[in-house]
């Protein structure tokens, strides 16, 4: 299988000058993501899950290690050492990041927000509008929300808007930072269906999730992160997966 992302020995330490103290987040993380694959990361809060994603997206500067991404624009590239211009370009065109939080310019409507995403990725204005509308329908954002400022949206609507904003660029790699936190079950199922669709279309993804049930059938691998490093044996093979399903079925039956 061709690999789109290969992470080797990634660690991140934060040095707080004021307290003169070092905080270790993730330690010696190594894994790789196949093209079109989906890796799930689980772990308690504070374990360093988000740090891994942010190091890949270069919001955080990794202290050691490498994140080799097989890009369309530049070929194989270590995201830890790539230039800022390269990262900006990759973010606009190839790598998407979705969290449950929404950062948006004031006085920007939901539709305009998604259109801006497409414009950033280099589509023409007409094409951007077309793609944005298509995406918003795809994520079931009803038309009467399009011309509203998203600050008033519900959590689920914001999240779907975030997804639409990221997906309108048709990224090759999508990083999902707890996108289903604070969503009700019906919306979760909707998001899961949409992610399945994306996966079927060939988008490679890494996602952080809290609920294991959500990840079933979606992730190829699940890594459990604890105190900053991957737990050995946490990899979820297909056998284990069916076993888990079985136990759950038993539980439900009783």
């Amino acid at each position, binding site marked *: 299988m061709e690999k789109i992302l290969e992470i080797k020995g990634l660690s991140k330490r934060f040095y707080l000058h*004021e307290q003169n103290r070092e905080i270790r987040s993730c330690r010696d993380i190594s894994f790789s993501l196949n093209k079109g694959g989906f890796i799930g990361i689980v772990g308690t809060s504070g374990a360093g899950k988000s740090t891994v994603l942010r190091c890949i997206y270069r919001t955080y500067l990794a202290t050691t290690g490498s994140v080799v991404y097989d890009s369309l624009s530049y070929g194989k590239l270590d995201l830890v050492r790539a230039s800022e211009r390269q990262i900006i370009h990759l973010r606009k065109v190839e790598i998407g990041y979705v969290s449950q939080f929404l950062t948006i310019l004031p*006085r920007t409507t939901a539709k305009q927000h998604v259109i801006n995403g497409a414009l950033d990725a280099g589509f023409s204005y007409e094409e951007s509008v077309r793609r944005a509308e298509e995406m918003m329908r795809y994520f079931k954002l009803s038309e009467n929300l399009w011309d509203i400022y998203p600050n008033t949206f519900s959590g689920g609507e914001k999240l779907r808007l975030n997804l639409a904003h990221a997906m309108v660029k048709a990224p090759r790699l999508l990083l999902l930072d707890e996108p289903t936190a604070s969503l009700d079950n019906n919306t979760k199922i909707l998001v899961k269906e949409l992610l399945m669709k994306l996966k079927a279309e060939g988008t490679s993804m890494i996602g952080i999730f809290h609920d294991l049930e959500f990840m079933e059938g979606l992730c190829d691998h699940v890594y459990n992160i604890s105190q900053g490093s991957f737990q050995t044996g946490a990899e979820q093979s297909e056998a284990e997966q069916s076993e888990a399903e079985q136990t759950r079925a038993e539980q439900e039956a009783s």
Partner: protein
Amino acid sequence: MEQPVLRVDHLTVRYGKTCDYCRNGGKLTKNTCPHCKTVWACNDVNVTLYEGEILGIVGESGSGKSTLMKSLYFDFGITEGKGYLKDFENGETDIFSQSLQQKKYIKNHIMGMVYQNPVLGLRMDYSSAGNIAEKLIAAGNRNFGKMNERIAELLDAVEILQSRKKEPPKNFSGGMQQRVQISKALANNPAILLLDEVTTGLDLSVQAKVLELIRKIRQEFNISIMLVSHDLAVIRMLADRTIVMLDGRIIEQGLTDQILDDPQQPYTQQLVHSLL
């Protein structure tokens, strides 16, 4: 390698005679030499600006942000350093050593500046249209009808009513003055826009308008913008890359979200933690 639209090498602006101590890199107290009291307002500053990007500049008052901006617009003479513009002789000649005439050409054709204080950028007693016309005339326009058309276009872009174009900016609110300044700066389709704390002191709704305008300008004209701001939320929303200045020096630079979420330097950490 991509050619930047602006490159500044080793820019230094200082006031005072200097002495052997500070010339040889002795430690300064803030930006001032403890022996000869020379002020190093900008100290060996290197900046590159690429096409279509917004570069944020943050730092405390007196850190040299405005000095950098005003030096680029030739308001201050610089002490040392070189600057190159892609649109000026293909970036091969230093802009700071040009004649006054050439500098005027650069100011009128390649760069636009919006000051924090509108008094510096506008003639308060002239009509708003006249203010913009001044810039158009400076760039060689002489056709009254064409200039009028352009002025109408610019005022529309910044949402100022045509019916008020004959009024002098002194009659306008702060936000409107700022928008007239922006339209004046854009008059000759510059490649680079220098924005020095344009949203400081404006109320939130007007600030939102100005921010929206900046985003629109960037999107429509693919212009490169240097944006000085105290407001880290503004920087986060608009800037692609950010540089942090302290005591006349650049102490840190990087992707905006990296600077704000994973600051490395003590001062930057302090700055980010001061955020409400």
